[in-house]
């Protein structure tokens, strides 16, 4: 276990060695801050049906920023080690392949969580200035942030999988960006294709991140998305592990 935490520690720290982490954090804060400003302005216009949490998590700007961070966080995980040749020193140490895969995935997840921490401040400021109790259902917070964590787990696992496929970080970023975008837009099909059968509509809604967020940010915590994201995360990590081990296949 010590070895695993040593690996994890390096993965988390490696974000802060490079300027990428700070650039990503800066622009992510800028976009989410702007997004929050828009949400609050909307609420200021008059009586509204949505809470500040819903207004924050269900905008186009939120989803754009959200799509972009995953390729940026995950593209270097494996690709960089392949390119620099450090994979050879890493894998000739007495450690197991799965320890490397999980530590890389978890390292990204830790950074992703750190990325979200400042956003809590927005809501704290909102509460402090408005002194409104009604806008602050704890369920809505719990739901939104739980879903953020679940989606993060899955999308980071996709990113790690893309990165283990290639030694080129740009290619890894393109693959994960496309995969996550397609997943997201597939969930929006029910808005585009209007003559869907109800069964198909339900099926699409099952993996629609936008719809999940709509529910969770109201504080409605559904078990189906929880199961969906966890199983898909496990699946992607197993695939990543398989590809990572492929170099050991006796051909």
């Amino acid at each position, binding site marked *: 276990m010590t*070895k695993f935490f040593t690996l994890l520690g390096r993965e988390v720290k490696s974000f802060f060695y*490079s300027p990428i982490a700070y650039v990503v954090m800066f622009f992510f804060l800028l976009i989410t801050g702007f997004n929050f400003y828009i949400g609050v302005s909307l609420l200021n216009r008059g009586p509204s049906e949505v809470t500040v949490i819903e207004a924050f998590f269900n905008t186009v700007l939120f989803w754009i920023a959200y799509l972009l961070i995953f390729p940026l966080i995950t593209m270097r995980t494996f690709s960089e080690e392949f390119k620099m*040749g450090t994979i*050879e020193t890493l894998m*000739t*140490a007495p450690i*197991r392949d799965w320890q490397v895969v999980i530590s890389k995935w978890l390292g990204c997840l830790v950074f992703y969580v750190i990325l979200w921490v400042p956003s809590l401040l927005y809501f704290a400021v909102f509460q402090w200035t408005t002194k409104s109790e009604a806008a602050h259902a704890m369920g809505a917070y719990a739901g939104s942030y739980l879903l953020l964590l679940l989606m993060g787990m899955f999308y980071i696992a996709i990113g790690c999988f893309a990165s283990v496929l290639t030694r080129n970080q740009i290619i890894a970023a393109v693959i994960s960006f496309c995969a996550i975008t397609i997943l997201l837009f597939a969930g929006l099909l029910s808005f585009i294709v209007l003559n869907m059968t109800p069964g198909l509509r339900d099926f699409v809604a099952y993996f629609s991140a936008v719809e999940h967020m709509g529910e969770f940010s109201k504080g409605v915590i559904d078990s189906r998305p929880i199961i969906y994201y966890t199983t898909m995360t496990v699946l992607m990590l197993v695939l990543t592990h398989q590809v990572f081990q492929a170099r050991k296949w006796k051909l």
Partner: protein
Amino acid sequence: MIKVENLTKRYAGVTAIDNISFEVGKGEIVGFLGPNGAGKSTTMRILSSFMPATAGRASIAGFDVFENSLEARAHLGYMPENVPLYTEMRVTEYLIYRAKLKGVTGRRLKERIGDVKELCSLRDVENRIIGTLSKGYRQRVGLAEALVHEPDLLILDEPTIGLDPNQIRQVRELIKNLGKHHTILLSTHILPEVEMTCSRVIIINKGRIEASDTPQNLLDQLRTAGGVRLEAKTGSDNGVAELQKIAGVKDVTVEREGDWETFLLKTESKGDVREEVWRLAVDRKWAVRELSRRKATLEDVFVEITHADV
């Protein structure tokens, strides 16, 4: 310490190593020689469990590198070619990270980090970022890293490549000292280095082992090893014919430069015919301005073995 049996590795139709077998005993320093692409790095990568062999077995300290890979790796300090390092980390930080990965903890961790920094003269740069270090220092960081868990066996792939002559000398000294406590398998192109550091040489060419012996024995076995060089004025004599009469001379070539002729006599590797040549020169009243012996080097062995078909 190392046992390799009938090891074969094929990549997409290309046979990188072809049914090789060898052993390295405890305490040996073995030099692994061969032209580029001969299969040195491939063999080392298989030994370090980085890639599997297509066929055959290899074990380190009794542990199969494929089936008991973790135990085998725990006994091994491996420095890959070109020494890949995390360039954004600091020297001490990197060594601590690697030591922990190799299971060195607690008080021993602190001791070992201090020891390897001392051994590899890294004290001056311990807080520097690896990316800012010169090639020589990086090489030493790589070596320190390979040594940090006190492995029984060190495998070093081209430890002196890209270093300047002073650095090469330092690394060579270091390796020689390490040989007192560790078994070492190192690959290199630099032949004088092998003659100076290694107790045994394995020459590999086109994926096959061509020779495996002490440097001295290899020199002795060399067919066209030694030679004598004579610069003389032979006047009207046929120098080549006279010299060829000497017992032990296998071949004589000559170059003319005015009145002076330079004869190159090829002999058996152990044979020294200088005395006979001198007597002949005195008898025939040749004027001599140089009579010297050329010793065979490992380079001759290498060229003879790896270019046998040329």
